[in-house]
């Protein structure tokens, strides 16, 4: 198969674009590297919480969201009930509503049932990768294949590493620093997502508020901080929009 696909928009050929599978594999490699220790840590945390093998692996496919799963495992371990744990998971995953909005925009023209299937594994990594890549690729088929490849790679890595972490995590020495996997991976993603001033302000506010709010809101501190960060960070955007409207 050729390394490039000929892509067209309507009837007009707009050029040759790299094959989506190749591009996806290349783009997601740093994310996979980041996902390995993070997934190992989640698997180890599940084992430490006393989960059986089936209980540890079930959330991988039920929610497919690492940070929410980790939050859910921690909540269960500390004795929170079903409702509190579910609420925590949903609040951590509330951002997926915005990712879903992005997905709806990426796959305009795709049958609704297909969009609903594509939404199942939508996570931070797929959103960040696709948001950047799809700004330069208009062909929907190309996008679906790229998205599918990224998703397959993430699921495979996520599940396999959690399995390994569950089986062997308890035997790894703490000096390996697996507990740092999540903050390191997220710090890297954060550095990439704060190129604009408003994003940097949002991150600073959110990062500070979560610490202060943890004393008052407990597990709900994270969503409170996220909302506070967005409200403060979006002010420059709102001001800019207002200025544009006044000018026009």
């Amino acid at each position, binding site marked *: 198969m050729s390394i490039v696909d000929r892509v067209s928009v309507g009837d007009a050929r707009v050029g040759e674009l790299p094959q989506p599978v190749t591009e996806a594999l290349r783009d997601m490699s740093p994310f996979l590297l980041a996902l390995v220790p993070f997934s190992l840590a989640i698997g180890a945390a599940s084992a430490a919480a006393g989960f059986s093998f089936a209980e540890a692996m079930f959330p991988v496919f039920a929610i497919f969201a690492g940070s929410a799963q980790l939050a859910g495992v921690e909540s269960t371990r500390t004795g929170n009930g079903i409702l509190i744990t579910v609420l925590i998971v949903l609040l951590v995953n509330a951002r997926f509503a915005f990712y879903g909005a992005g997905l709806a925009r990426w796959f305009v023209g795709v049958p609704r049932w297909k969009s609903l299937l594509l939404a199942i594994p*939508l996570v931070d990594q797929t959103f960040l990768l696709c948001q950047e890549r799809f700004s330069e690729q208009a062909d929907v088929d190309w996008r679906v294949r790229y998205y599918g490849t990224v998703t397959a790679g993430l699921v495979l890595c996520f599940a396999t590493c959690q399995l390994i972490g569950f089986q062997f995590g308890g035997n790894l020495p703490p000096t390996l620093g697996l507990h740092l996997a999540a903050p390191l991976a997220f710090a890297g993603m954060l550095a990439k997502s704060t190129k604009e001033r408003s994003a940097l302000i949002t991150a600073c506010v959110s990062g500070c508020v979560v610490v202060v709010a943890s004393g008052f809101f407990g597990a709900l501190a994270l969503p409170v901080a996220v909302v506070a960060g967005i409200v403060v960070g979006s002010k420059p955007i709102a001001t800019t929009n207002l200025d544009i409207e006044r000018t026009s």
Partner: protein
Amino acid sequence: MIIFATFALAGIGTYAIRIAPILLGDHLLSSSSIESRIGLIAPAVLAAIVSSALLIGPHGARLPGIVELVVVGSAFAIVRHTGNVGLALAIGFPMYWIGALLGLT
């Protein structure tokens, strides 16, 4: 069984969150202010998670370990400079291991 029920409910809720904009797409996507805020969700969540991991312990806010702070801060700076997310872990873990070998952790 309780764990299965918990994560099954969480999974259903999470999927509902993911597909809500697809089912209600026209209403959500027509708002430019919401679209502007989409880009702010990721940094807000990521910053909150990083901050929580470093600065919040089982009993509330805590001072972070100096090695952890330096490692995560360096990872942030390196990725910001290079744009390569994979370097956060590729450099962060060896830095932590060196700190552990020196007895700083």
